């Protein structure tokens, strides 16, 4: 497993043999999950890639010949650009709002005493573990034109709320759905932090804001990065939330891709879109990790 510490007693040959044996064991332990993920993940990924170069027949069937780049050319269609831009803005807005709300929230929890901290944390865990679909559906009930919120505003002499099926409703639903994914990594980072460093900064005459900017914020960056990725990636490809809270005029990348497979029956174009979204997401993740890692 690990090399013995008493190096004098071990000859190089024995050590090399032991290393080879350990390496073989590692491969054996990796084998089942490697085989599974190759069959049910890597090969499907290759199939999507192959389909994205295929042709759609006039009846909507996919023909695996006449390979071409038509589906990729269609990505530059202004309609696709509009949908992509809307999705991107919505994902950025969701991430930014989640971060702005969660940071002080996680900070508050992390600076309580142990008992209060545990109770407050459990109260975050409950929505985190609760069914996502159900939590999104709750907003459909809440925001309905004759829903509770609307009745409340009308009872107070206001207008009924007409938020459902708008971008705002989708934004609210996304923030609500993914907020716990931001809170938990932020909390983990802040809780792990050595608060004596903040005290040291204060001892060295840093004011509260400077101590936060120069000590707390940099130290909590891993949490900020992890939380942002956990929120940004699923919101960019969101399907459930816009399907429930959004309307016909608020198509996002997620439902656009789905519609290529279920309604429009254009599998090559849907595949090309999937590949494009995935590539952007991977690139964003890698860039974000790199930029963050440098300052850690």
């Amino acid at each position: 497993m690990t090399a013995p510490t008493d190096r004098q007693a071990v000859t190089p040959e024995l050590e090399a043999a032991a290393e080879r044996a350990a390496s073989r064991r590692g491969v054996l332990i990796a084998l089942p999950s490697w085989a599974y993920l190759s069959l049910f993940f890597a090969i499907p990924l290759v199939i999507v890639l192959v389909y994205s170069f295929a042709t759609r027949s006039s009846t909507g069937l996919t023909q695996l010949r006449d390979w071409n780049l038509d589906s990729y050319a269609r990505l530059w269609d202004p309609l696709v650009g509009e949908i992509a831009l809307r999705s991107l803005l919505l994902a950025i807005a969701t991430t930014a709002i989640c971060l702005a709300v969660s940071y002080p929230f996680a900070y508050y929890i992390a600076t309580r005493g142990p008992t209060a901290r545990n109770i407050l944390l459990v109260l975050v865990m409950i929505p985190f573990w609760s069914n996502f679909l159900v939590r999104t559906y709750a907003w459909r009930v809440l925001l309905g034109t004759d829903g509770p919120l609307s009745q409340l505003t009308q009872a107070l002499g206001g207008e009924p709320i007409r938020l459902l099926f708008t971008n705002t409703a989708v934004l609210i639903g996304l923030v609500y759905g993914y907020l716990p994914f931001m809170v938990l990594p932020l909390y983990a980072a802040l809780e792990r932090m050595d608060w004596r460093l903040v005290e040291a900064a204060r001892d060295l005459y840093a004011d509260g804001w400077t101590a936060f900017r120069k000590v707390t914020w940099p130290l909590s960056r891993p949490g900020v990065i992890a939380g942002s990725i956990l929120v940004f990636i699923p919101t960019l490809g969101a399907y459930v939330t816009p399907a429930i809270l959004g309307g016909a005029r608020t198509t996002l990348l997620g439902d656009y891709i789905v519609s290529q497979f279920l309604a429009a029956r254009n599998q090559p174009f849907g595949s090309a879109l999937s590949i494009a979204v995935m590539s952007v997401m991977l690139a964003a993740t890698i860039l974000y990790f790199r930029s963050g890692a440098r300052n850690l």
Partner: protein
Amino acid sequence: MSISTGVRPKSPTERLLAANSWLVYAFFYAPILVLIVFSFNDNNNVGIWTEPSLRWYRAMVENDDVLRAIRTSLIVAAVSTVISTVLGTMAALALERFRFRGQRVYDGLVYLPIIIPDVTMAVMLLLFFAQSFRILDGLIGWSPNFGIGTISLSHIAFNISFVAVVVRARLGQLDPRLEEAAADLYANQWQTFRRVTLPLILPGVLGGALLALTLSLDDVVVTSFVAGPGSTTLPVYVFGLVRRGVTPLINAVSTAMLVASMILVGISLVFQRGTASSPRVAEAHPPE
């Protein structure tokens, strides 16, 4: 760990932080509470309160489609949780405790399913199953149907990675000296794993299993692509209903699903307590 706040008078910053936190809690819980309250409403219209009743819960347990969907969900969740926990734990061990050729590629293969969006995963698996069923039909004349089988296989595919990440985090915290000590005391590889490593990473394994279970019970997108006629899971069935409109029956089903989630939270808390009381290696060996 935390700054002592008890003695000092509350600063304006502190008050703002507290206010923000209570607002966040209200935001978290208000929609859920409204949903639960309205599930006990005796009215065909979701938004208008008439009187309390269990009418919609009765409608739920008498609805064969709902019951069938619950059965499918439970079977898929059980199968995919068990298999992905075993495979994911093995993947975590291989990545954290061994060095071998091709490990970096394998590492990427294990992590990629987490980064890939749901929709892409759904598309991938749909095309994969359709294509391989066509090939199977051509080769041996056997063409399986989409259903519980395809749903379970797909859930395992995305759950392995999540289990691996959780278990790997736990393994990373583990002091390797404990395993070395077992080896020094003539335990073989299997005994070391069975008696030392596994008990210490068990909270991580159970946490990973719980995450897999939750993700399986939650999934809508992938499942709706690989489900067959007559075999959908509960979330996919509810999703279909929601898209057609809001009904009090959905409120009742949703509340039942929330209760199930709460039970899972309770179980996870019991596990965590187990973690806290088990001897923490890091505490036994404070860093110099």
